[in-house]
Every structure is written in C-alpha cells, then in structure tokens.
C-alpha cells in the first residue's frame, strides 16, 4: 500500500515539478545528448521489470530475451524462423508430434556446448509442478519431450495444437548450470547464462539491467556492445531523462512522445499491438448477461472517439481480441457507432425507458457496476467514456475503482475494464477469453462467456494445421462474438517509443499487452548498426 501511495504521490508531484521544469527551460543540454561518432552502447528506459531472469520461471517465454534463445524466433513480421533449431519443426502424427533438429556448434556464454539435453531439461522443469512457473498453462498441450541423440528433440502433445510451434520461441536454459540449483530461488534466477546475443553484467533490482555483447554469438556478435535497460516506472521521469540525454530511447505515452516530434536527433516509432481494452459483460449479471443489452452496448459505444480523445489517435477501434489489421480478422465484423440502432434493439427487447432515463424490464433496472484498476488512468478514461456512451442509450453503468484484490471476487457478476493481448496465433487470446470451460478460471474468461458454437469453433481452430480450416473456425468465433458480444471490445492501443537517431536497423514488431524487455524498437538491438555520420571526433 505504502509503495503505491508513494508512487502515486511521487507521480503527482513530479508531474507538477516537471511542468515547471519544462516550462522554465527547454534544456539546452538536450542538444548535446547526440553521440560523438558511431555509438556502440545504448541505454533505454522501460516501465516494466521482469520478476526473474530464469526461463524455467517464465522469463523469455515469448522470445526476444537478449540473454537466451528459443528453438524458434519471430522475425519482424511475426513469422517464425529457426533459431537454436536448424529449421522449422517437422510436424507429424496429425499435429501431435513436433520434431526439431538443433543447430550445431552453439555454445552457452560460459563456453559449454548447447545440446538436446538442455532443451529437454528446460521444458521438463517447466512442466514440473514443483517449479513455481505461473505461465505453465501456455504449455498445457505438451505431454512429453525427449532427446534423440545430441541434436534432435521430439515433443509429443496431448492433443493436436496448431499454435504449439509459436510456444517454442521459449528461452532455453543450460542444464549444466541450472540443474544444480534450486529452480525457484537459485542464483541462476538472477545470474543467468544463455546462448543469446547478450550476456547479463548486472541487475540492480528496481534500477536497471546491464548487458554486454556476446562476442561468440552464433548469429554474429552484436555491433551494439553495451546495452542498458533502465527501469523507470514514472512516465514523466522517463521523458525527462530521455530529454536530458541520460537515455538513448524510451517508451512513452502519446502525449509525452509528442513533445519529441520536433527533435531532429530523435525518431518516434509506433508499434502496432494486440493490446486491447475491453469491458467484460458477465453472463451472470441479469443486465449485462442479456443479449439485447450486449448488442446495444456494442454499437452504442463510440470507439473512434475513444481512439482520438483518449489515445491521441495512437490506436484503433477493436471489435474483438484480433486487431482489424491482422490477417486473422474476420472482415465484415466491424460494428458502426449507431446510437439509434442501439435504442431500437433495447426497445424491441422490452427494455423500456424509466422516469430517470434509465431503462427497465420486468422490474430490473438496466444498471450494473464497472470496475477498473485504480491508478490506471488509461482504463479509467475508457471506463468513463464507456459509461457515458451507455447512458445515452439508457443503460446506467456505475464506474468504480479498485485493486485486483477487490475486483477479483466480484468478476462473476460485475463488469471489469480489462486489458490483454498476445500477438501471434489467434488461439492465444480467443481461447482463454471465450472458452466456456475456462469461465472463472483465474483471470481467464472473466465474463463467463458461454456459447456452444464458439466453444466448438475454438476447438476446431486449434486442432488442425490446415490454414483454410483454421481461418474458417476463427471467422465463426468472431461472427458469433458479434451476434452475442459478451465483451465490448473498445480499442487496440499503439505503443510509442522515442529513440536517438544513432543507429540503423530499427523497427518494431507487433507487440503484446505486456511490453516487457522483449518489445520496443530494441527487440532486435543485436542487429542494430551504429550510424557513421556526425563527423565528430571518434572515440
């Protein structure tokens, strides 16, 4: 509690102080931040810190871990490419067996060779119930893994799972180091050793992570020799330190990123994401569970205005977890903002306006609570806009702030402003959000969504590797969701980064909700090339 209060107070005061500071001086020091000559070190500011650096506890599960490699990796377009595996896996047994052949001559940063034993050790340890890995659910399909010789690994699945190959971007830990320690608390969790392009040189918790290039990296030694990630939770502080030249790059909210638009020495990168904000409409709430109310809310809400006003244009309307620019998006499921249409749906369903403008049906007032995470401004803004749009259609939504401890026990009947999103396979988000058997399972299917047609399509989609069949299945899911929207999806949010223009080769991937170490223009810092311009004296 104390930390949170302090942080909020910190944020408030710093914001005030910064308003003064930036008004008082557009610091002339900002111009001196530019590097002299080719720059082979980079310092970036991020808002999020990993809990652990051990792949066995979940670090690097989505790839891009800097210190480790997976069997596969995502390229800039989120297509799978081989990494520690020599090629993409061979899939057999009706999608139940995945066979990987490993790359030769790869070593860990301590010099020991990487072999199939390390892969088997990593996956078996993660599946072990005694390992405190909160992301184990993502490998739910995995039944067994075994090594055949030194360079082949065979994964056997419990059921055919089309997205499994995308799970094998998971970082691989060295057996000869990690197996000798307590998996949950051993030194490996803070002093990792991997095959990756960078070697961790220090982790000052709450402050920064420092890396140096791995000169023996199998894919070529990185040109950026020193890489530092400073952990700065407060947006304003991060922006100030970027301006002061302490940082070379940082993630920033749209309004702060706009402040760097005129800075010629810096470039802004906008990452497209799967990061959605949605309102859960719990099936067990008599109002929010009503299909007419759900459909009315779905078109009463003005998504484009939310994007323009709340996100300063950095985002796009969302109609489901799949973004509209994804190849998996079911064309034609976009919903137009149509207040009159919403009112008509409610009228026809028997929700009649009462004296105070709030509708009612059979004595039930069209009113329900909507919770958002306290202190999360973005969610608060979305919640308030949603409530105001709903009010115009005659539905009263009472917004309330709370921590997850307060919200979780109420999720079965109260609406929640939720966020999430994992890029890649359409199975990832949709299965967890919509599968009826996952209703109330932790934070999965928070709305207790229950639709037999969707359940069936979700199973069909994950159990085949045939692209056309999968596309058809996920089209069905999205059409059904439009018919009976158990969630009102509001927006997909862009992530903005401002980086010094000192390197070539920067770009962004499609990003998930949690933009940790893996996201941002530095997802591929190992392939950045220092620019040889400026003409200043070289170091």
């Amino acid at each position: 509690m104390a930390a949170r209060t302090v942080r909020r107070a910190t944020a408030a005061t710093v914001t005030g102080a910064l308003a003064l500071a930036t008004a008082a001086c557009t610091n002339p020091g900002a111009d001196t931040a530019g590097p002299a000559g080719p720059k082979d070190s980079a310092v970036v500011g991020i808002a999020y810190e990993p809990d652990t650096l051990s792949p066995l506890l979940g670090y690097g599960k989505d790839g891009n871990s800097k210190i480790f490699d997976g069997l596969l990796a995502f390229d800039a377009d989120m297509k799978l490419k081989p990494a520690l595996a020599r090629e993409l896996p061979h899939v057999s047994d009706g999608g139940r067996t995945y066979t990987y052949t490993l790359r030769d001559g790869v070593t860990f940063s301590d010099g020991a060779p990487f072999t199939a034993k390390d892969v088997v050790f990593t996956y078996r340890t993660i599946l072990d119930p005694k390992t405190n890995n909160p992301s184990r659910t993502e490998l739910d399909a995995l039944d067994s893994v075994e090594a055949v010789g030194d360079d082949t690994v065979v994964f056997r699945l419990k059921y055919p799972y089309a997205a499994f190959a995308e799970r094998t971007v998971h970082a691989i830990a060295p057996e000869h180091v990690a197996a000798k320690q307590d998996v949950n608390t051993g030194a490996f969790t803070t002093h990792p050793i991997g095959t990756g392009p960078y070697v961790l040189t220090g982790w000052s918790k709450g402050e920064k992570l420092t890396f140096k290039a791995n000169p023996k990296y199998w894919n070529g030694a990185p040109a950026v020799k020193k890489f530092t990630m400073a952990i700065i939770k407060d947006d304003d502080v991060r922006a100030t330190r970027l301006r002061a030249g302490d940082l070379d790059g940082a993630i920033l909210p749209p309004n702060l990123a706009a402040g760097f638009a005129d800075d010629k020495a810096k470039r802004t990168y906008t990452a497209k994401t799967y990061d959605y904000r949605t309102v859960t409409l719990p099936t067990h709430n008599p109002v929010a569970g009503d299909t007419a109310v759900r459909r009315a809310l779905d078109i009463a809400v003005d998504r484009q205005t939310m994007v323009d006003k709340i996100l300063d244009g950095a985002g796009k309307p969302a109609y489901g977890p799949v973004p509209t620019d994804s190849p998996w998006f079911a064309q034609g499921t976009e919903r137009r903002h149509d207040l009159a249409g919403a009112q008509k749906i409610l009228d026809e369903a028997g929700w009649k306006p009462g004296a105070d403008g709030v509708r009612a049906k059979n004595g039930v007032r069209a009113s329900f609570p909507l919770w958002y995470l306290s202190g999360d401004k973005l969610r608060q803004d979305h919640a308030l806009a949603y409530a105001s749009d709903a009010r115009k259609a005659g539905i009263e939504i009472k917004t309330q702030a709370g921590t997850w401890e307060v919200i979780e026990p109420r999720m079965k009947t109260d609406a929640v402003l939720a966020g999430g999103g994992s890029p890649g396979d359409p199975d990832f988000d949709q299965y967890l959000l919509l599968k009826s058997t996952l209703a109330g399972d932790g934070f999965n299917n928070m709305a207790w969504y229950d639709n037999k047609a969707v359940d069936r399509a979700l199973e069909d989609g994950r159990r085949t590797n045939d692209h056309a069949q999968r596309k058809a299945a996920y089209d069905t899911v999205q059409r059904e969701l439009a018919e009976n929207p158990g969630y009102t999806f509001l927006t997909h949010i862009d992530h903005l980064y401002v980086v010094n223009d000192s390197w070539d080769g920067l770009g962004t991937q499609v990003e998930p909700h949690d933009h940790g170490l893996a996201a941002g223009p530095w997802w591929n810092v190992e392939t950045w090339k220092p620019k040889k311009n400026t003409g200043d004296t070289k170091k």
Partner: protein
Amino acid sequence: MSRRLPWGAMARMTGRRALAAVPVLLGVTLAVFAVAEASPFDPVKAYAGTAGLTASQDNLDQLRQNLGVDRPLLTRWWEWLGSAVTGDLGDSSVMRRPVADVITERLGWSVLLAATAFAVAIALGTLLGVLAGRRRGGLLDRTVSSLAYTLEAAPAFWLGLLAIWFFSLELGVLPAGGLTDTASDTVTPDQVARHLVLPALVLGLTQLPWFFLYVRQGVGDALDEDPVRGARARGLAERTVLTGHALRSGMLPMLTLIGSRVPEIITGALLVETVFSWPGIAAATVQAATAVDFPLLAALTVLATAAVLLGNLLSDLLYGLADPRVGFDG
C-alpha cells in the same frame, strides 16, 4: 576526564536488555505474520505478476501450495522461527532468492545512507544549535528555528522530490536516483559518492530539526545556569565557556535523541530509498510488504526492531556515562 568506565554496570544493563529483547522480537515477528495475513494482498498474485492474469486456476493453486502460503498462520510462523534460529532465513518469493542473500547485498547500502544522514543531521544540528542557542532571538536563531519547524512538518518523500527537481532537473548537477550512472555497470566509489549526496542530504534534513532544536534549547538553558555565569565572571574565554560548560550539559538531551531517532530514520529511509531508487533494505521492505513476502518481511522487521532496541540501549548507556546521576537502570 580519565575516569574508569563502569564496565560491569554497563554489561549488566546490556544483558538485561538483551533478555528483554527476546519476547519483543518474538512478538513483533508474530505480529508481522498476522498483519501480512490480514492484508488484502495475495502472495500468489504478487508472485505470478502479469503472468497470473492468464494462468489457470490449477496453476495458481499449485503455486499457492509450492509457496506454502495456504497453511495456517501459526504453523508458518513456527516453521519460520525454527529455521531462522538455525540461521536459515528462508527464501524470498518476491526476489526469487534466499533472504540472507538479499539482506547481505542491500544492508551495506542502507547503513551507508543512514549513517551519512545521521552524521549530516548531528553535525549540522549541533553547529546551528550552538550558534542559535548562543544568541536566542537573534536573526540566525529566528531564521533557522522557523526553517526547522517547517522541515519538521515536511514529509521525506516531498523533500526528496523537491531535491530531485532542483538539483537534478533544474541545475542538472546531481543524479536523480540509483546507485551509479545509468550507463555504468560497475560500482565505483566516486559514482556512489555522487549518487549518495541527495538521498543522504534529504534523509539528514528530515532529522535535522530535532537535533537542532534540542541543542539550541540545551545550550541556551546552560548559558543561563550558574556555572556558566560563574565561568564568564571568572573571565574565561567565550570559546571555553561554550565548549567546556554550555555544550557539555547542552549536549546531554541529544544523546537520548540519537537512540530515539533510529525508528524515525528507518521509516524515513523507506520513503527516501523509494524516491531515489536506492537499492537498500528499506526499498526491499516496501516490495516485501506489498507482495506479502513473509520470510523477507519478517527478517527485515526483526532487523529494524533490533536496530531500534540497540539505538535505545546505546542512548541509555551514553546518558548513563555522561550523567552519573542517571545510572544504568536497576
């Protein structure tokens, strides 16, 4: 001055206090477990972090069992106590490492910060106190006194943010936080020294008013007393009067103050370390508390309690030495 120290009496007092500390520490750890248990934070959620939002209930239940937080409060406390007595402080769930490692890595930085802050507060407090006490009602006295009352009311984190704003953002002369420069990955003494200035100054300033006001009062009163008036009448130099007479009796209350300020400096450090991202014990305490990390929280509380008890003991010993009438409690 070369009087033999009453070692025996001092040792007896220390022994008595050590015995009394045992039930106090036991009670405090039990209270920590009970309070943490009653807090709305869920240790499993805190452990899983964002991954917990997509984890299955099975996965979360398994974690709860692995972390051992599903067992009754008293069982956990008794087990923790049993292993703590043998020197095994358990594993911190929030840091993902043994508690002993966390403490050894961070304790030094906190002691450095607190000691520097204490030194600043005592040195500055004494100096200003003597100067102000000498001429009470003078310009210096009035200025510093009103400043001291203002400082007394100012929360540490607010002072911290003000210092960051002024020295780091406006002037750009001192780093805003951390132990070393962002781009540096080695800890060098000169970097630490530069990064220590602001947090130590702020923490010292929060303690300054107490020392200043006590010394000012003590010196002022002493100057009015007969021995001082006598010394002056005998024509002793002002300097001798001040240091030999006034300061000696004026400093007495300050000795008790040093001990009794220990808890204040610990809570002050909680805020200052958080504001300045100082990688010390206090910052870890905040994390342990919000994550309901029982072993780490208990160990840190024991440490803080021990520091308070030691502070009290030290001030009582010093007081007993400085003023034999007080003696070593009976």
